[in-house]
């Protein structure tokens, strides 16, 4: 089958791009012929490039869509919709509708993020939302990483959760391991002590990820048997993210058991950290599903995740969830006591 993958793409650092690259590898291993269409601003290394962001630009897909049996679109609104222009967004929705009319059956949309919030379940009422609703109905397949995500989406757009059109695909379905070895081996490589219980938060630094919650929770526990590491870098030059990184540095400096390692994490190091950890903490304030939790699952590491979005659905065995900072402190305290 000839497949067109539309996504951000490596070498530009982006979680969705990394996901897409693994998806492409899996498809190629299955014998499909895959071309990647990358947004020039976020992934210039694709076979094809086209700026699809905003207005009628989505129509550029017409040039290529006819040539493929399937078009997989890694969807996050930021790649296609301009945030600050209502008319522009309307044009994009109309373009998306026309594309779905022309090529709807070919589309397989992997939803990473959607525009509406979980707590806004009043349904698609506005004109643009109604257009989107029709477009989604015409779309061949829509893939989610969790049932909760799918149900929320279908409820919002008032669509029937038809299992043929709306698919659930585990976030780690196409994931490949980038590092192998034992926990202690990885710790030796990363320069970490073997005899401590290690909690990590890993990924790009953004305020909504709530990494500070782990540092606060560890500070509230007196045990010397635990250590915490925040590992990651600021992906985009966005002041709140830069400020947040500074805040994490300040917090980490106050507790010698904590460290914030501000660096870009390669795929190999990402997996090394996961394997080295005893617990992977995903304390996000908002998220649908998490690639970090999916990688933890790939390496059989328990996750401590906030009870948001569909995170609880994707956790591996031995994981736990929390709703408040207090609950996170209690979870960590219990673990510290157990390992003391």
């Amino acid at each position, binding site marked *: 089958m*000839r497949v*067109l993958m539309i996504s951000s793409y490596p*070498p*530009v*650092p982006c979680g969705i791009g990394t996901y897409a690259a693994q998806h492409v590898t899996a498809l*190629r291993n299955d014998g499909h*012929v895959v*071309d990647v269409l990358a947004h020039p601003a976020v992934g*210039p290394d*694709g*076979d*094809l*490039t086209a700026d699809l962001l905003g207005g009628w630009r989505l129509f550029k897909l017409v*040039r*290529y869509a*006819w*040539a*493929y049996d399937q078009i997989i679109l890694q969807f996050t609104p930021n790649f296609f919709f301009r945030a600050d222009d209502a008319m522009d967004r309307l044009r994009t929705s109309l373009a998306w509708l026309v594309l779905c009319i022309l090529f709807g059956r070919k589309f397989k949309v992997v939803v990473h993020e959607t525009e509406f919030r979980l707590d806004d379940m009043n349904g698609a009422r506005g004109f643009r939302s109604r257009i989107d609703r029709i477009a989604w109905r015409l779309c061949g397949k829509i893939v989610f990483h969790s049932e909760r995500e799918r149900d929320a989406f279908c409820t919002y757009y008032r669509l029937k959760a038809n299992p043929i059109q709306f698919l659930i695909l585990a976030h780690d379905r196409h994931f490949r391991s980038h590092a192998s070895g034992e926990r202690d081996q990885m710790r*030796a*490589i990363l*320069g970490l002590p073997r005899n401590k219980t290690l909690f990590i938060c890993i990924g790009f630094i953004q305020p909504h990820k709530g990494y500070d919650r782990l540092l606060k929770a560890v500070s509230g526990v007196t045990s010397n048997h635990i250590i915490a590491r925040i590992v990651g*870098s*600021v*992906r*985009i*030059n966005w002041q709140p993210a*830069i400020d947040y990184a500074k805040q994490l540095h300040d917090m980490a400096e106050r507790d010698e058991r904590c460290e914030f390692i*501000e*660096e*870009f994490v*390669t795929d190999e*190091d990402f997996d090394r950290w996961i394997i080295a950890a005893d617990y992977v903490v995903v304390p996000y304030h908002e998220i649908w599903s998490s690639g970090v939790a999916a990688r933890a699952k790939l390496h059989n590491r328990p996750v401590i995740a906030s009870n948001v979005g569909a995170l609880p659905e994707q956790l591996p065995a031995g994981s736990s969830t929390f709703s408040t900072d207090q609950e996170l402190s209690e979870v960590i305290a219990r673990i510290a006591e157990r390992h003391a």
Partner: protein
Amino acid sequence: MKLALVSPTPVPPAFGGMDRLLEGLVEALRQRHPTDLVTIPFDERSREGVLQGYHDFYNLDLSAYDRVISYKAPAYMVQHPNQVLYLSHRLRVFYDLYQPGDAAHSRMRDMIHFMDNWALNKQRLPHIFTVGQTVSNRLIRFGNIASIPIHHPTTFTPLPPKTGEYFLSVGRLHPWKRVDLIIRSFRRTKVDCPLLIAGEGPHESELRELAKGDSRIQFVGKVSDSRLAELYASAMAVLFPPISEDMGLITFEAFMSGKPIITTEDSGEPALIIEEGKTGWIAEPTDAGLAKKLEEAWASRSQLESMGERCLAWMKPVTWDRLVDALLKAGDAIATNAKKSPERKVPTPKCLTSLVKSPGKIRLLVTDNQIIDPPLGGGRVRILELYRHMPEDIETVYIGAFDYPGPIARDQMLAPNFREILTPLTSPHFRLHNLLSRLTSGDATLDVTMPILGNWTPRYRRLLEAHLPSADLLIGAHPWMFRFFPETDKPIIYDSQNCEFPLKGPMLERSFAGRWIARKVYEAELLAIKKSQRVLACSDEDAKCFREFYQLDQERIVPAPNGVDCARITPTSAETRRMTRQRFDISRKFCAIFTGSNYLPNLEGAEIIIREVAPANENVDFLIAGGVGPMFRERYPDEYIPSNVHILGFIEPERLLDCYRVADFALNPMKQGSGTNIKMLDYLAAGLPIITSPKGARGIAGTSGEHWIEAEPNAFPCAVAELLELDEIKWKEISAKARELAEREYDWKRISARVADSFRELLVERREGKGRV
């Protein structure tokens, strides 16, 4: 432990803040370990100078040092297993100060980004420190590279602060320092004290003009360090509103002198350092904005002393020790990690070798629409052999495309001096090609549709654009891709393999679409000839063809016949032949070979052998090797194949050698073709007696009866029978002469050396502004 502090020095030489830092840092490092300051001149004024600088640092041998601290672009290109970077800045004209220019400028930017991203890769440089937050932010913005900012002190020796008497501006009088903004805003104020402007620079006369009529503004010119210290000591505050300054040594010097700073929001590092109302003022970058803050400073002059104390306190932790500690600690961490994890060693810089050529070498960028490895078929073999046999001072980067769907991009070395980079063609490309192929009843092959469809594989052009800046010559093997060549002032060469239009035109004339494509073939070939300063021609016949069809000037034609690797293909002894035959299913007394790719003239040759020659000579086994065999089976699936014909299909090069070893003679019944037949040269090198058609022997400087036996294709059955009748002495004689001809005229080494000479000559002509075109 021996340290090297590595940095470029500007061409022409200039002393500035960076030099103060280097002086101070090297002294501080020497307090701990023996340290050498290693510098290389770096000329940023031209693209060549920039590339040369990258290249020089990349090749700098620092193996005598235990650790390296690099500073400033492109010093971080050095290769050392223990390198820590303390970055002052990259080449800002390719980042935040980039101004769009021509295509070459844009390619240059892409190349600099590529090399910088490679050099600053975390696997290679796990510890990057910067001179300030502004540089760190820029690393994040351009390249998402994490780093740690550490401010450094200077070698400036301050005097104790005195009561302020004037406002002071210090620095080069350059537009980037915005002294004009200081003057304009100062003139708007009613501040009753002088403004002293220290420094000199290209903007001085304009600034003096601007200050005319205001007696408060005084230019003090270039001053010595001691005078500068005096000026700082008696200033009220220092005005420093540059555009996006990386470090702002002036800020530190003022702080060390206990003087607050008045800067602007867009000044870069100074705006990040200064705390509003505590260690200075941050103004809007307008005349009115800065004037307002000046008035504010003037009004609060009673508080200037306490502000100065805060400035001094701010500078306390900014010490050489702190900086040196961080750099050495990072080096320790690298050393520890290298012991723990050998895989963290510096990766092989393969990506770099593609873009920066080796010192003193000529780089050829050769391009075509096909793959090279495996080298099956005349076209692929020619490209690989011609360029890999080039003299040692020439290296080749080949960019091509997979001519079948499915594979992913590939990048590999096929020889120490030959690199193959391939991109897949996209699905729309293949589908449109299939459509054209159907419209021409299968006559249109992928190569001839390439000039029409090449835009559907944009990555091909991107690869060319990325690699062109580092190349000395751009060479198109075949005319198909010339349409997609980026604009360049570098010499272009058309390495023709055939005269394509007379060859392809008749093949395409069956249909209307075919005739249209034939026209495109003509245009593509014409364009290739027009764009090229030299045309390599495989044979005299091709050269004549170019002259007749395209009025190509004879002076631009360089003879470059096809060749053979005489070291690899050698005559076989009787004993080796006997032993090799045992491994093949060869039972008859004689064995003949015909090789060919899936190409129409080869198919015609195979048809003659299968239908006419084999049935008439049952005491001979006929081996048909290469793509022509499967092509025959596909075209004629129901055709009877005599038992003495062995269709081997695609075979590995080593197995092809075995075929030559078992064969007693070779056949080449070609009815058409252009250029020379590489298979003929293989047969000659193998010392095989050959029966060939006159068309098959075209372009080869031998004679019938001496080096081979010529016969028309329809006379081949008789010619074979006659050959078998010849005595052994005659066979040996033909064999020896064939080999001698191959060695003398067609050994790739000789051909490549001749072609290389013509390339050098062209480059010299270019350099000297001469040239025949």
